């Protein structure tokens, strides 16, 4: 029988300078409790940082808040962390954002946040609508060595 342990955390953070570090540290602590490797944790925290920066810089939300939810699940064959980063802002068009993206490895000063999120996480999905805010759902897996 496989044992499953789950840990959850919810945070509401003000959109102030460097608040993304608080979000990243909280997620990192949860991941460490699950036994995730430091390299996986570093990738996840960098993705969370970019998601929070995108919310702060581009959402245009009135409440100036970022809503985060972390769910860590540990099973016999490894662990996973689901992360939701939500803002109540103007929303955006992910397809249009991706179309403006320069190719990987090509030097470009801005507009890399979503690309970095997708590169550092195993799964990324975006729910967004005009005026209805945005939620980025990201998943990081760690498989145990067999």
């Amino acid at each position, binding site marked *: 029988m496989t044992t499953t342990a789950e840990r959850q955390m919810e945070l509401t953070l003000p959109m102030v300078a460097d608040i993304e570090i608080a979000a990243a540290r909280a997620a990192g602590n949860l991941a460490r409790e699950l036994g995730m490797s430091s*390299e996986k944790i570093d*990738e996840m925290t960098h993705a969370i940082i970019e998601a929070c920066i995108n919310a702060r810089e581009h959402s245009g939300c009135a409440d100036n808040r970022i809503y985060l939810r972390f769910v860590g699940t540990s099973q016999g064959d490894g662990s996973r962390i689901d992360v939701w980063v939500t803002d109540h802002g103007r929303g955006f068009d992910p397809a249009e954002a991706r179309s403006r993206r320069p190719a990987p490895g090509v030097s470009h000063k801005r507009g*890399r946040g979503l690309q970095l999120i997708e590169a550092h996480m195993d799964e990324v999905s975006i729910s967004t609508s005009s005026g209805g805010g945005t939620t980025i759902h990201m998943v990081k897996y760690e498989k145990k060595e067999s």
Partner: protein
Amino acid sequence: MTEELKVAVDRKDNGAVLYTKGYINNVGGEEIAVRAYELMDAGVRTLLLNLRDTKIVNSIGISILIEIIEKMIDKGGKIAFCCLTPVIHKTFQIMGLANYATIFDNEENAMKELGL
């Protein structure tokens, strides 16, 4: 909350090494830029950034690093990095920074290759 970046400079005969400690965000990136531009104005054309005590970067900070690299290239100089964490190395490659600046595993190799 603030995550202030500290930058230390070690002048060499043929260039300089910048040691960063902390988060390279917009403020941290600007701090590096100030120190790098001071060195460029003083004639330094070979700059090594040792990021051994930096564990987190963001895309805004990296965009400032790219500006520094572009200015150095315009002046005929070169910038290199060393002692990156695996995730920072991966991020630099995605951002295209690795195309314009050499990345070394350690400072010893970097100094030797750069002639510092």
